[in-house]
């Protein structure tokens, strides 16, 4: 009776081990095939005609389900920078300020493993051959800070320093002023708003 049960247990343990081994092999094979089918590639979202200086050039990582990525850029003139899109894990942007040629190295962790992708070289043309002034768009905090400053501060202060100069004031200075200067106690600002005003004053 006991010998029969022991035999059964041995049989099933052996059968289980064999099933597990086969399943492991099958899973490895499937993942390997899946990984080969999922090869990441980089796609420029702009057409070649748009690869010009001063305009951010968006790129998209296609072919895999991206979990994480990093990117670095190398350019001939050193005028190009890369930025990961904070909203889309599949996207990044490159911007150059001079006529340049750049290459991007991207590391991607996807559901099927890690990948290193080299993209380029990409030639970036000067936006125009005319002598021009190209106003650089600024940080969104500038507009917000300017709006708040004009609404709340201009009755006593001017940005240029002709009246109660504020240049170089930080968000912490603004916090302190609100708590200590009686004329300012009615002002209520969030940390981000104080930061925006400080950014406006510093730019």
């Amino acid at each position, binding site marked *: 009776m006991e010998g029969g*049960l022991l035999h*059964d*247990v041995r*049989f*099933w343990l052996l059968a*289980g081990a064999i*099933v*597990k081994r086969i*399943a*492991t092999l099958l*899973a490895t094979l499937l*993942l390997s095939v899946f990984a080969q089918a999922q090869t990441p590639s980089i*796609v420029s*979202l*702009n*057409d070649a*005609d*748009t690869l*010009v200086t*001063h*305009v*951010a050039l*968006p790129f*998209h990582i*296609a072919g895999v*389900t991206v*979990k*994480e990525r990093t990117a670095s850029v190398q350019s001939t003139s050193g005028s190009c*920078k890369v*930025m*990961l*899109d*904070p*909203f*889309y*894990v599949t*996207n990044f*942007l490159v*911007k150059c300020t001079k006529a340049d040629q750049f290459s991007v190295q991207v590391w991607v*962790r996807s*559901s099927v493993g890690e990948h290193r992708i080299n993209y380029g070289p990409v030639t970036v043309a000067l*936006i*125009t051959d*005319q*002598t*021009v*002034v*190209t*106003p*650089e*768009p*600024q*940080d*969104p905090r*500038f*507009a917000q800070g*300017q709006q708040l400053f*004009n609404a709340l501060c201009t009755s006593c202060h001017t940005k240029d320093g002709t009246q109660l100069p504020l240049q170089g004031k930080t968000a912490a200075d603004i916090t302190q002023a609100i708590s200590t200067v009686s004329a300012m106690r009615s002002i209520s600002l969030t940390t981000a708003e104080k930061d925006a005003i400080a950014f406006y004053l510093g730019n």
Partner: protein
Amino acid sequence: MKLKNKVLLSMISATALLFLFQNCSNTGFMQGRDLASEWSSSLDPFFAYYYQTPPVAYFDGVLVIPNDADPAARFADIGFIGSLSLVDGSQPSLSYKLELRKNDGSRVCPQQTGTLGTRTRIEFDCVTSNLQLTSNEWLVAWIQFTANGKTYTLEKPFH
């Protein structure tokens, strides 16, 4: 072998199989909080990334203003060179309306309409009538476009 043992062994086998595929789950995807922290750390004034919410399309460009010595004539003819492309890489035909406005919303030159296909570049020549900007005014490139049956608006400020 008893039925109980068979059930037990089947459960063990099923659990082992499940463990084999545990790395295939999507738990590694970046969640909203991770993206938000990356947003604050990756913002670079160099890029002037002005989107506060996930954009449907990337709209970027520069104003090309003649380096004129006469301030009154400086904004007489403003060029805009930029691009509009969907964030997911699909490139359906995009119909757009482009305007150059002051920050108070007033239009400074006639609206341009167009359609983008595989070409993503937009060029706009804006001839103004005696435009002058005070220190509290700046220009805004305003674009409205239709993609996948919906209409979207993006604004890019130039201070």
